């Protein structure tokens, strides 16, 4: 009997503890499949961050370190330089990566550190109960922008792709959504390209995943999918932003 679908080796048996309709679980699975396909599990050191994905270290079946809030790129930088033969990736939320850890993100990217970052943008601080993040959209209501985000009051959102694209260091930058099986397949392709960039020693790679957080968006999982496609993806257009040509070679 042929096995058509099974748990990736790069995931442990620990059940996910995410809300119904949350995209963290889907993203984990795609990352794990990419690790499996590229035979990276045994070389990998995954860096968990602080947010709903803080337990990533329990879910990925490889060596892991759990970083302080926002510092995963600094931790990953050092792990990669300490053990260049390892494959080093971080898994970070938008509060973690684009707010408290902005400096670490930008500088790891600018230096062209040979690490890969999975960036889960759900336009809010999921774990602490849905506060405004730098990525929170115009007019989006959160527990700390209860009237809806307004530039004059809460300031403007941050588009990480635009910021990172201004730097020389990144070899691969891509933004994806997970709102249909086809888009999930495309997302995995991006993750594979990001990982290959590191394997080829090309420098910094990052995949931004626009992710649903139904609980804090006060939506059903289906409503949240529509919100990702119709609101988030309009403001943060998906697509490859930077592809060093060597990423595609070989």
């Amino acid at each position: 009997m042929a096995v058509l679908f099974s748990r990736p080796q790069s995931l442990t048996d620990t059940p996910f503890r995410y809300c119904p309709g949350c995209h963290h679980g889907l993203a984990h699975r795609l990352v794990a499949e990419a690790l499996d396909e590229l035979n990276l599990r045994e070389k990998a050191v995954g860096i968990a961050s602080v947010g709903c994905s803080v337990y990533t270290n329990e879910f990925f079946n490889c060596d892991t370190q759990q970083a302080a809030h926002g510092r995963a790129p600094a931790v990953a930088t050092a792990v990669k330089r300490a053990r260049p033969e390892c494959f080093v990736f971080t898994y970070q939320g938008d509060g973690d990566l684009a707010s408290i850890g902005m400096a670490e993100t930008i500088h790891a990217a600018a230096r062209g550190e040979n690490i890969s970052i999975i960036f889960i943008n759900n336009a809010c601080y999921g774990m602490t109960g849905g506060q405004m993040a730098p990525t929170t959209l115009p007019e989006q209501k959160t527990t700390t922008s209860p009237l809806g985000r307004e530039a004059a009051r809460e300031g403007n959102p941050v588009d990480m792709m635009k910021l990172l694209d201004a730097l020389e260091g990144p070899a691969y930058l891509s933004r994806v959504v997970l709102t249909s099986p086809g888009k999930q397949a495309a997302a995995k392709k991006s993750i594979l390209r990001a990982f290959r960039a590191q394997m080829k020693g090309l420098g910094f790679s990052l995949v931004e995943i626009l992710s649903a957080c139904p609980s804090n968006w006060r939506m059903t999982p289906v409503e949240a999918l529509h919100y990702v496609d119709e609101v988030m993806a309009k403001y943060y257009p998906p697509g490859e932003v930077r592809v060093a040509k060597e990423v595609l070679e070989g």
Partner: protein
Amino acid sequence: MKDQVELVSGNRAVASGALDAGCRMYFGYPITPQTEIAEYMSAVLPEMNGVFLQAESELAAINMVYGAAGAGRRVMTTSSSPGISLMMEGLSYLATAELPCVIVNVMRGGPGLGNIAPAQGDYFQAVKGGGHGDYRTPVLAPWSVQEIYDLTRTAFDLADRWRNPVFILFDGLLGTMMEPLRTREPIPERAAPSWATTGIFAHGANDRAPRSIYTLHMPEGALTEVNRRLQAKYREIAREEVRYDEHFTGDAEILVVAYGSVARSALQAVRVARQQGRKVGLFRPVSLWPFPEEALHALSEKVRKILVAEMSSGQMLEDVRLAAAPSCKIDFLGAMGGELIYPGTILSRLQEE
């Protein structure tokens, strides 16, 4: 290279001590009066196949130390007071994850941006915690360029022995002054410890279970258990790693207690006072944590009076008070904001007796 004597600064001695202890990874951010350490490391580490990285901030630097230590490498960062403050969250994580590393604070005047003159105002921060939660780090306080080198080497061994960050604390006076330094045979970097996240494939151990370095302990009782284990370790460290130095204490009636550069002024004052026939001695804590409380207590029962001399408003003073016998009178001679304590000042206090 063996038994070579060089004339170098305290800052250089830190770098040499670390390199000779097999440390090949350094992360730091410039800040006076210790930037020389980073400059030296940036010149020599690449040639030694090591890693020098100028971090974007001390926040990044300490978290790079976390990553490298977790990956099983010998690693050091150095900074001065304001930069060390920025590292405190990271230090708490390092202590909780039990990652060995060495952190050097070449203290300057504070609080705030303060100034760049020598001071000892960071004693509380280093000795009593600094970051959040119930953790401890051994703190070593050298008083000469030679001892900076020696204790830097010791610090790496302590860090490994106890799986704990170790602090080296001295002021900018010691960091920038030059003295002869006799280095010892360098050792190669030790192999990665058995808990390090080296990748499952490392060293041919393809089938080992994944390893994780983490500090979140949410299940009921888990964090209490972690704390109990840490406290048990700290009690052992407190028993086994006490270090101090005594001069003329045998028949002393007055005891000066001082550490770091101030202890040098104190020794000078004590020598002159001895020539004048005064029965005075010097007690110098070398480990500030664990504080040498038993040895100091024993002396405090014999002397009439203790004079604590310290370039702060009285931080170590509190530990001396806790350690000393209740009957012992304790005086204080302080200096703040980068003021030095000269031998003459201590001597006049001793002559007041």
